[in-house]
């Protein structure tokens, strides 16, 4: 894992999805979904390799 790793974020509540960097991931976990305000857990994020596996 590198500092520039991108994650795919999918909100389980509103379905919003976007690519985020580690700093944005941390901010989303702390502040909730930027679109709908839902509380988030790490399960809302996957790495690119995880996305390809699914």
């Amino acid at each position, binding site marked *: 894992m590198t500092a520039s790793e991108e994650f795919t974020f999918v909100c389980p*509540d*509103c*379905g*919003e999805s*976007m690519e*985020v960097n580690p*700093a*944005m991931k941390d*901010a*989303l976990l*702390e*502040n*909730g979904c*930027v*679109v*709908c*305000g839902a509380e988030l857990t790490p399960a809302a994020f996957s790495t690119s390799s995880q996305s390809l596996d699914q």
Partner: protein
Amino acid sequence: MALEKQTEMSQSETDALLGRHETGVLSLARDDDPYAIPISYGYDADERTFYLRLVSTPDSEKRKFLSSNPDARLVVYEEAEPTYRSVVVTGELVEVPRDAMTVEHIEQYGDAKRPLFEIWGDSKPELDIKLYELRTDSISGRHIELSEPRHD
């Protein structure tokens, strides 16, 4: 009925009022048509900027008024007799595109409350939730102290 004297609020008083509230009435206009809705907001006193989530459906009246970056007014008020306070904000409502999202935006919208007045009856895919900044041109606050209790 005697009218009480209105007094202008200082910037710190105005910022304090905006900070302790999370809802207000947002007014937009298009040609001669007015439009006003209750909204939830987050407020950054340093930037004097408001952060809003606005929900609309494909056919909603709201979407028509949000089609471009409209001029807007926001009114926030409180009454705690004998003191009545109000703040009127003017500015431009600017959409924050998803691909321009930053850590700072995420933090600001974390402070903005859920859209408490919005109707979520439609299924989520039908709802268009857009993020906006209200970039202020002016913020003015006033308060009135009643000298005698009001009797209804």
